[in-house]
């Protein structure tokens, strides 16, 4: 039984009034709030067994190393990876993608090769490829999406060819909410001889991930969006591919042997984890994932599906409001404009009304421009979001619409 009002009690920040009134937090797509168990777990590590993981040979060090590696195991299970060594800790998903671009990309991309992305990519899954293409002489290609934000299979297949070396695509757009059929895309990419990297930052917040079923070669997501701490992210890669990739950064425990003249590097995953790891954050991230599993991914999905339908219906009640991104089966991300009100003006009134939304280009400037705008307001759902949050949003929007109407 998924009782959202009961679940909200797990999130200290959601229960803190601001200026005497509750806050409708609708910016989970940017970063999620943290349940008490994540905060407790991290505090517990600092208070009972903190040391540098994978370094010392005393009790604290052994204890935290065990927790750190158990966290890797939790991530493996969460995305159903075959092996634990396929899980690389990074600072965030952006670093995960940069890692692949700088290592696999530099090693495998040549002039004449192509990297294929969708029009709906976050800068994190666009700029690294653009830059690595500039360095290697490869070409960045972009396949079109529909005006409502839908994936168009023909557009993808038309852009895919024997020169495509990598397809880098989001599983869920952070602006439009569009869900991309990764499994299908992976089959086609592999048939063309390309690898596929999945940006699962948004998808992971709302859906069950199975990297074996998707058959993706790389997948990136971050801790702070999956109800865990900031400063930690994950790169999944198939072991046979990761094993062939050169290190990303150097130093620390990523070595096998070092002399003044020469270094041999550790096996995966250590090879890609130079320097002291964000061990407490990794343990906190795993706790967030366990929390999601404890609630049940199916239950979270069901709750958000219902709330997505409710939000869509209520937003459509606001005069002159246009939702940007209306693909069928979209997830709980709502970009919108109201009349000709600048999103920044809109957000000002919403903030006064204790409604937290994001405005701007959402780190997807080409996409926002492609949809015909320079800036959008965005409300996004999390597992703790309620109809009351949406009602507060609608009331604030109605107030804003009136506030800015010329009188």
């Amino acid at each position, binding site marked *: 039984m998924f009782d959202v009002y009961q679940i909200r009690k797990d999130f200290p920040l959601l229960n803190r009034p601001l200026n005497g009134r509750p806050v409708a937090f609708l910016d989970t797509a940017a970063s999620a709030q943290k349940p008490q168990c994540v905060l407790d777990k991290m505090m517990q590590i600092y208070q009972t067994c903190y040391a540098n993981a994978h370094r010392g040979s005393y009790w604290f060090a052994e204890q935290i190393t065990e927790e750190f590696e158990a966290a890797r195991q939790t991530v493996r299970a969460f995305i159903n990876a075959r092996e634990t060594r396929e899980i690389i800790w990074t600072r965030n998903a952006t670093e995960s993608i940069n890692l692949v671009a700088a290592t696999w990309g530099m090693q495998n991309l040549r002039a004449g090769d192509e990297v294929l992305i969708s029009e709906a990519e976050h800068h994190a899954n666009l700029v690294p490829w653009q830059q690595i293409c500039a360095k290697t002489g490869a070409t960045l290609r972009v396949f079109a999406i529909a005006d409502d934000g839908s994936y168009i299979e023909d557009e993808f297949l038309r852009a895919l060819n024997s020169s495509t070396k990598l397809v880098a695509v989001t599983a869920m757009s952070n602006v439009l909410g569009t869900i991309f059929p990764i499994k299908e895309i992976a089959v086609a990419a592999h048939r063309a001889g390309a690898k596929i990297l999945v940006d699962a930052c948004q998808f992971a917040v709302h859906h069950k991930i199975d990297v074996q079923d998707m058959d993706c070669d790389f997948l990136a997501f971050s801790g702070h969006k999956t109800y865990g701490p900031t400063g930690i992210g994950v790169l999944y890669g198939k072991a046979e591919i990761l094993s062939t990739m050169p290190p990303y950064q150097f130093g620390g425990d990523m070595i096998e042997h070092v002399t003044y003249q020469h270094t041999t590097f550790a096996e995966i995953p250590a090879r890609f984890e130079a320097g002291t790891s964000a061990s407490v954050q990794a343990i906190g991230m795993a706790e967030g994932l366990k929390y999601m599993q404890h609630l049940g991914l199916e239950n979270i999905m069901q709750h958000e599906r219902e709330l997505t339908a409710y939000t869509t219906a209520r937003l459509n009640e606001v005069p002159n409001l246009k939702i940007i991104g209306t693909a069928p089966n979209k997830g709980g991300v709502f970009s919108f404009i109201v009349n000709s009100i*600048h999103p*920044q*003006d809109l957000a000002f009134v919403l903030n006064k009304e204790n409604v937290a939304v994001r405005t701007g280009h959402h780190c997807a400037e080409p996409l926002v421009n492609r949809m015909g705008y*320079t*800036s959008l307001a965005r409300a996004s759902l999390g597992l703790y979001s309620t109809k009351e949050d949406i009602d507060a949003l609608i009331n604030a929007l109605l107030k804003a619409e009136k*506030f800015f109407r010329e009188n």
Partner: protein
Amino acid sequence: MDIDELIENFSFFENWEEKYQYVIDLGRRLEPLDEAFKTEQWLVKGCQSQVWLVPQFKPDCIHFCGDSDALLVKGIIAIVFTIYNDKSADEIKKVDVQKIFAKLGLEENLTPSRRNGMMSMIEKIKQYAQNAK
């Protein structure tokens, strides 16, 4: 209207709605910026909305024109101009803008976390004043 009158006007408002309706009104009354200046060259960087600032250097002062596509920002620009417009470079340098905004009860618009770009705009005005000397 000078800044003291403006401070007095702002002292009568009882809630944010009244206060910011007035800010919007000030924006509507802002001296229009010729469309020809709404180009990349005059765009102030670091703003979420588009903000243009154009200086006209006169013998003893600087006259600014500006605009924004966001209504509240446009109103704040009108207030910033009430503070800085047609002043000499020395006068511009001496202004304590934070203090004036605090008196107006609009200090929330000048915090670095606000991405409305007003801080960038004020920096730009000071830069022009510096270069004019």
